[in-house]
């Protein structure tokens, strides 16, 4: 089973502080990490490979320092890495980013499954995973919490997954190749091993630009992005609730009064 994992390097949000004056994130001096949700995607890919064999590949689009994120994935047990890095990619929105990633996946050609984290901890859009599936015209299941069964000897190959929905979960059968995005309930990511770290340090990671992917410059980066960020703000904190206590009769009266006053 050949699996491709798409990951993103993000600022470590546990270290990010907010500037009280401007209400923006203070990014200076903050370490970069693999998006926490992508760690579950990496772990699930490694587990599937351990069960069914095959090859795992990790892809990221990002500046040169995103190389660290790829090497961390390799040190956990991913087999190969590809780095998509090009000034022309800068400023890409979720549409352009998913287009770029989908072209890279196409170039890798041989795959049964694409795995992404459910969303990135910085942008929180949860759009890139589904976007890749759309560009490649693949079946997709988002918010997967469990992979039930995998049939690789059927034609087409089939996978049954459970995906989280608001009030419970759905069971979906997917024809492979397909894309899934995963939630944190799916597994517990492993730490790297020393052997993995030693191997990852020596690995040659290819860097692909828009030319390698046959992408025109007006389809990518700021120019290729149909959406723009207009404003970033911190949502107002939710006010604490009120607990009414006492006899039901009194509570009802008080509740009635509260509602009346509010209206």
């Amino acid at each position, binding site marked *: 089973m050949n699996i491709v994992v798409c990951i993103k390097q993000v600022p470590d949000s546990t270290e990010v502080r907010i500037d009280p004056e401007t209400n923006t994130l203070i990014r200076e001096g903050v370490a970069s990490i693999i998006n926490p949700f992508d760690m579950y995607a990496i772990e699930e890919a490694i587990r599937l490979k351990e069960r069914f064999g095959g090859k795992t590949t990790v892809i990221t689009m990002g500046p040169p320092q995103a190389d660290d994120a790829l090497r961390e994935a390799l040190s956990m047990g991913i087999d190969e890495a590809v780095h998509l890095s090009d000034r022309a990619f800068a400023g890409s929105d979720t549409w352009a980013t998913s287009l770029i990633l989908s072209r890279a996946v196409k170039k890798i050609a041989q795959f049964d499954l694409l795995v992404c984290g459910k969303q990135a901890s910085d942008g929180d859009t949860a759009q890139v995973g589904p976007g890749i599936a759309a560009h490649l015209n693949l079946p997709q299941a988002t918010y997967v919490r469990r992979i039930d069964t995998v049939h690789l000897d059927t034609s087409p190959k089939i996978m049954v997954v459970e995906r989280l929905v608001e009030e419970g979960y759905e069971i979906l059968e997917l024809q492979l190749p397909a894309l899934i995005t995963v939630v944190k309930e799916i597994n517990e990511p492993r*730490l*790297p*091993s*020393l*052997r993995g*770290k030693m191997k990852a*340090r020596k690995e040659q990671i290819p860097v692909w630009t828009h030319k390698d992917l046959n992408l025109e410059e007006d389809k990518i980066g700021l120019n290729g992005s149909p959406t723009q960020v207009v404003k970033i703000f911190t949502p107002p904190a939710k006010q604490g609730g009120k607990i009414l206590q006492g006899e039901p009769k009194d509570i009802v009266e008080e509740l009635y009064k509260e509602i009346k006053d509010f209206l």
Partner: protein
Amino acid sequence: MLNYGFTEEQLMIKDLARKVSEEKIKPKSKEWDEKEEFPAEAIKALAQSDLFALCIPEAYGGMGGGLIELCIATEEVSRIDGGVAASYAASFLGMFPILLFGTEEQKKKYLPQIASGKSLTAFAITEPEAGSDASAVATTAKKDGPSYVINGLKHFITNGGDADIYTIIAATAKNKGPRGLSGFIVEKGDKGFDFGKKEEKLGIRASSTRELIFQDCKIPQDRLLGAREGLGFIATMKTFDQSRPGVASQAVGIAQGALELAVAYAHQRVQFGQKISSFQGIQWMLADMSTKVEAARSLVYSVARAVDRGDKDIAAASAQAKLFASDVAMEVTTQAVQIFGGYGYMKDYPVEKHMRDAKITQIYEGTNQIQKGIIALHLVREYGK
């Protein structure tokens, strides 16, 4: 912290050991301490990260490297939890006799499973009447055809009951004193080999400490360490030469952890309208603590390097590292509790645990008084002529 000229690989080990400690050990440290529970998850995480493969040659499934790598990892684990570190380091204590004195067959059989972390090990010499006086071992091993029959009791054995492989010391010739002691490899599940009570301890409570009971425990003769009788005492002494810098690195880690907690606390605790870190009385305490920790660390890594270079006569230096670092750990952790004041005495904060964990480093693998004996003996031999 000074740059100790660690190689890129050694820094990698340090980072990895810190990551495992912060992510897999720290969240459960308090619970293991309170319940005196064996930290199986921590041991598994250390194994998955290949940290049990340190010090073991690649030919036997290890990562190669030497004592310095083990000290680096032990210091990092101890910085978070001295109890988990005790269990981790004690496994190497059981491994060293096999590595140093085992036959090729014994190394091939046992070292790979130890390196992979599949089997935890323990070392057993201590008995109720044989503590500092290691030569007073009363456990016997009698030759019986192609087997040995072991009878006796070992106590205070770290990893006892949780380890799979035990390197034990027993008398094969009682009339020969220390030269009549031999090493044996006993496996969990061997007939006649059982475990006694689990000890309740002041500190390092995540590590398990139990009695080992041998009642006509019959093992094949190929379990005799190094296939030679009489190696027991020398194997023990050489093992301790290797392991004492490990205990010293445990002490440094426990002290470092307490120091960091004390600095962080002093920098947020406000009294008399200002942070207590702004008071010179506190500043001088912290400065002294960090200076002592750094001095201990310097000694530990110098000795570890000497061992790895294969220097002869390392017994005294090894004893000095253990003596000094463990005394520093006791002093620094006590001062750290002092800086926390009343809060430091409460179990709500992790600092008192460091103080409880530090105490054992002055006692085990030879009390500090025994270390002084070793150092004095060396002095007399060297300069007493």
